[in-house]
């Protein structure tokens, strides 16, 4: 398929995934703050770290108050990773790929865009977004994903969509875990108090993992949360799951047999996937979770660049016309 089209599908999918993650993180944090006792300091600045935009935030805002953070992450278009920017970018990419995606997908992304746009307009008139705005955003993302699965052939383009989504998701899960884990770390010894439990549960909720975690491990424990969010093979937001399935899509696209590679993207992703296959949670904790997650993020970025080079950025060949300047 056309390189530019593959590029658009990949980014369309990434931006929808990003919007969903940002919205969920805000949503979970809001509910959590309601459960905490009065006077307990609310934690809003970590939300900014999960999109990696701390410097940009500091440029435009003085304090990481709830209102500022929500505005920055939802409607402030100076932030390329806010919900509105993500949905706009997803829609622009969908427009570029419009002849390829299905009408159902296009209509869904449009409805989604107009809804977020309308909320942004009322926000400029001083209305804070209603709380269910964020769950609406998540639902809209799920609907888009549903139309993608149910209406589009599971062909090369679909695999580019899946690849983009899983790369984005692996990155976001790793960032959410990284930020939250360090905030909660001092209280590891005090496990069992009601608030710690609530806050660890919030880590799981931020990645939509709470229910599935309970089914697997029941009791809340930091190590097991790390194990679940990093190494689980079945939970669709776990880093391991994302990496293994992204690898699958990459091989479906290129046709290269599994466990071999035909380009640097496959080589790097395959290597990361192999490591996650065999590493144990104890090793991760002992080595240092932050270092480990940071390493994952760096490698995911490199793999993203390698994907761009392998599929989207074919180099042009210079042309010289035998009839120069035929017509002025």
């Amino acid at each position: 398929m056309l390189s530019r089209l593959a590029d658009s599908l990949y980014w369309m999918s990434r931006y929808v995934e990003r919007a969903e993650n940002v919205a969920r993180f805000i949503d979970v944090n809001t509910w959590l703050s309601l459960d905490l006792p009065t006077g307990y300091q609310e934690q809003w600045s970590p939300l900014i770290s999960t999109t990696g935009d701390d410097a940009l935030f500091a440029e435009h805002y003085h304090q990481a108050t709830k209102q500022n953070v929500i505005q920055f992450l939802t409607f402030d278009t100076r932030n390329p990773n806010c919900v509105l920017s993500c949905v706009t970018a997803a829609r622009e990419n969908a427009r570029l790929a419009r002849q390829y995606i299905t009408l159902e997908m296009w209509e869904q992304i449009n409805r989604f865009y107009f809804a977020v746009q309308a909320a942004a307009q009322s926000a400029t008139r001083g209305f804070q977004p209603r709380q269910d705005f964020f769950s609406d955003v998540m639902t809209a993302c799920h609907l888009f994903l549903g139309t993608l699965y149910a209406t589009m052939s599971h062909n090369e383009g679909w695999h580019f969509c899946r690849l983009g989504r899983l790369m984005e998701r692996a990155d976001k899960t790793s960032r959410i875990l990284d930020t939250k884990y360090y905030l909660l770390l001092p209280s590891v010894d005090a496990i069992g108090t009601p608030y710690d439990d609530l806050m660890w549960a919030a880590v799981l909720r931020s990645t939509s993992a709470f229910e599935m975690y309970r089914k697997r491990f029941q009791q809340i424990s930091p190590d097991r949360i790390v194990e679940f969010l990093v190494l689980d093979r079945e939970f669709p937001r776990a880093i391991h799951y994302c990496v293994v399935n992204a690898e699958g899509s990459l091989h479906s696209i290129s046709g290269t047999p599994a466990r071999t590679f035909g380009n640097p993207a496959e080589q790097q992703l395959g290597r990361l996937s192999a490591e996650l296959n065999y590493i144990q949670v104890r090793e991760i904790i002992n080595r240092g979770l932050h270092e480990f997650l940071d390493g994952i993020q760096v490698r995911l970025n490199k793999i993203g660049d390698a994907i761009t080079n392998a599929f989207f950025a074919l180099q042009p060949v210079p042309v010289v016309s035998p009839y120069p300047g035929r017509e002025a």
Partner: protein
Amino acid sequence: MLFEGYETGNFYDEMFEADGSPRPCARLLYERIGSVGDAELRRYQQAAEQALLRMGITFNVYGDSAGTEKIFPFDIVPRIVPAEEWLPIERGLRQRVHALNVFINDIYHEQKILKDGIVPRDLIFSAKSFRQACVGLKPVKDAWCHITGTDLVRHGDGKYYILEDNLRCPSGVSYVLQNREIMKRTFPQVFDDSNVRPVGDYPSYLLRTLQDIAPAGTTDPTVALLTPGIHNSAYFEHAFLAKFMGVELVEGRDLVVMNGYVMMRTTKGFERVDVIYRRIDDDFIDPLTFRPDSMLGVPGLMDVYRAGRVALANAPGTGIADDKVIYAYVPKIIKYYLGEDVILPNVPTYVCWDDAERQHVIDNLDKFVVKAANESGGYGMLVGPHSTAEQRDKFKEAIRANPRNYIAQPTLALSRVPVIVEDHFEGRHVDLRPYVLYGKEIFVLPGGLTRVALKKGSLVVNSSQGGGSKDTWVLSC
């Protein structure tokens, strides 16, 4: 009731006779509208607009940074063309498109028509749209203009006239198809009973036409549609047509000339393209041959085209036949090549190039519509009766400075169709753009884009100037 107090004025109304009774072709629709009631009808109109918005058939409002988008206005009352009126239109279009293709081929080869003095030689060589680079080129089957969108108007005398030939990159056909989809949902019963001819097969005919013109020896040609990109106002249409033909939608940066062929960049390397339906003007398709500053085209494309290794639709150079001065000669062109009288007449046209005609135009500027020979989209145009003295003075100056560039036509009393204005109907002027495909055979789409000037009294139907559109129903009996 909504039609109460509806005035046809002194105009030909497409829906009503002069005495106010519905025309036979519109009776069913009239009854249906009467039976649904005002509120319901307005709900239909809103539903149609919402569907267009949801489908993203929108354009950006300039100067609005909040990203407000608007739909191209659409009115749910269709324009109905009875079968007996359509027949001569279709025959006339076939005749015209056939003759114009022969004309273009002659101009870029033997130039018999110039030698025989039917069309003045100077007129051709002074035309901006004449392409020296196209002289001697041999497009497949001598077909130059594969896709035409001819503008017709109906005058107060009830007759159809050709207003303009659009032979370069005519747009609007996607609205024909989209409007029809919406109308089928709005008035299903009327469709059931009135034998409206379908238009939905246009993409199949278009694809066949494009495959027909593939370079000789290509089996299973790869067709691509070349668009300037998402910021172009017709991008929706480009994506729409590519999608419904199942062909790639490409931008200039997706294409590259390699080893004498046009290739597109794909995830699996470079793939050859055989036919390009380009929606970019000649000027911009190849910076090495035409405008060197073009960022939209493909460097070297024309060399591949000259070598017969890629087909372009429309062929470069077709613009010569839609120069508005050449337009005035089309009846003679038809007579010359086909030996036939013109079936669909031109609007009487004064060519400012001619001294006597120019003087007449300048003396009567307040009665004429003046058009620049090479503009489209309603630009470079003066509607005399609606103009100010200052505007007329400007045009007089422009005409004297460059007489070759202007023609004038009497102001026509364009026919009208009812449109919904808040809680009632008012008549608005319309034109009609049918689409003609020219490959192995000629196909005239039974329908077309009815453009409507939504401003009260306005005669300018272009979407860039406050125009909207309507569905066009051609009846089969």
